């Protein structure tokens, strides 16, 4: 009898289950397609290729740097949008999320118009200090940050809006300064939201292609990240492209899964 009781409790409405199953199949089947088509015997040889390793290392380093930059600037932006009280806040929010809907290639062109050799900021840098940002690793990080920071902002802003402001008010009444309230009350309260946003941001940066190739170009070792390597491999060798995609996929799944476990284990 108890068995039927648990079954009854777990029963999922058909109206939810059917679309969920179809949706899952839609999401998972393409990945399965990659796994099935992968030339597994080639995998060890591909893994040992110095160019592949350079692209993987570059991807991991730049995506992490972009996440760090997004945290540094994105959390304050989110606070401003959630707690700030100023005219034009909704317009500002819309502007911050523009990179989410902008085709990344357009984002890359926009970055060039600002930081490029003849851009608003890039031109003086080039003329005075002979400094060019495009075609450098810095450009890769900037492109990734531009595209992925909105994910963090949206996630943190949501967490801030959901958080109970009475705790902050209580801390303030007890004599805590505004910065202390932020670091000791607000931030711990929204930590899960910040971490979720950071993970989303990192994952988006890792897969970044359009803005990177447009703004940073493609040069092995300095700007050729894994997605760029995959795209170029696709031009000549489908099998190689599949192997590279799988490696990128495996690394991101391992990193994301291990992070997830750590958080859920935390109290």
């Amino acid at each position: 009898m108890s068995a039927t009781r648990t079954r009854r409790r777990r029963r999922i409405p058909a109206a939810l289950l059917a679309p969920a199953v179809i949706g899952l199949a839609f999401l998972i089947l393409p990945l399965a397609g990659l796994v099935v088509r992968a030339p597994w015997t080639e995998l060890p040889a591909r893994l040992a290729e110095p160019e592949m390793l350079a692209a993987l290392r570059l991807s991991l380093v730049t995506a992490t740097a972009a996440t760090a930059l997004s945290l540094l600037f994105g959390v304050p932006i989110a606070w401003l949008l959630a707690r700030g009280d100023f005219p034009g806040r909704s317009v500002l929010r819309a502007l911050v999320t523009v990179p989410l809907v902008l085709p990344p290639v357009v984002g890359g062109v926009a970055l060039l118009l600002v930081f490029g050799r003849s851009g608003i900021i890039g031109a003086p840098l080039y003329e005075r200090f002979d400094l060019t940002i495009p075609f450098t690793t810095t450009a890769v990080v900037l492109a990734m940050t531009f595209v992925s920071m909105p994910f963090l902002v949206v996630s943190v802003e949501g967490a801030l809006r959901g958080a109970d402001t009475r705790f902050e008010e209580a801390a303030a009444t007890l004599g805590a300064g505004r910065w202390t309230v932020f670091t000791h009350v607000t931030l711990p309260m929204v930590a899960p939201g910040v971490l979720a946003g950071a993970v989303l941001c990192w994952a988006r940066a890792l897969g970044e292609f359009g803005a990177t190739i447009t703004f940073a170009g493609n040069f092995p070792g300095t700007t050729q990240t894994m997605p760029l390597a995959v795209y170029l491999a696709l031009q000549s060798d489908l099998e190689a492209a599949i192997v590279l995609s799988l490696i990128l996929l495996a690394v991101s799944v391992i990193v994301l899964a291990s992070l997830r476990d750590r958080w859920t284990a935390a109290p």
Partner: protein
Amino acid sequence: MRTAARRLAAATALATALLALTACGPDAEDDAGNTLTVFAAASLTNAFNALADQFEAEHEAERPGVGIVLNFGGSSALAAQITEGAPGDVFAAADEATMAAAVDAGAADDPEVFALNQLVIAVPEGNPDGVTGLQDLAGRSVAACAEAVPCGSAAQTAIAASGTPIAPSTYEPDVKATLAKLALGEVDAALVYRTDVIAARDAVDAVEFPEAASARNAYPITVLHEAANPDLAAAFIAYVQSDAGQAVLETAGFQAPDGDR
């Protein structure tokens, strides 16, 4: 319980049927018999758009409603789409190696070369750095195509032939992206096809260089085995190779193939 299970089964069946219906969609449209799908290399964009318009106008009388759908892209990407089963009638590639890959995969036979394209050095309008040949590019920032694409292998061949130590700042995935880096002012010069500079009109100038002759790209065209409309496909290819077709290609900056003309 039973009704719930039945409802679930019904919902699943309905969803599966819907999926199956959408999957069949594009195939049903091909029955028209008057539509020709042409997969063409990105560098053929302007020329083939013009050719398609002319072809449609000339064949309107005998085949009312004839229409050409053009799918432009990097040759290698197109070849991958074709070998993976994308439905098309004609494939025009930017190099023979890519066409050979499609032929090896069993997608087509007997491609014919219909045009040649040659690399030039694209420079900003007015050639501010006074570039006259590859030797002037040493130490400058240059954009080139990646070696995996035809314009990149041609560039490597030409650079090797010149003996000049040219170190490109970036290896772009296709020729349009390479030219875009120049148009945006990020590099001093770009190694691209003559046709791309002509297509870009005013913004850039072309500097011809002798080493380019050692690395000309031959453009092959063929009817695909999967063609829904092989007769119309053959007619289009014949039109591309006719005097009228070749004139359009020449205006776009292509050269006629050696020998047979």
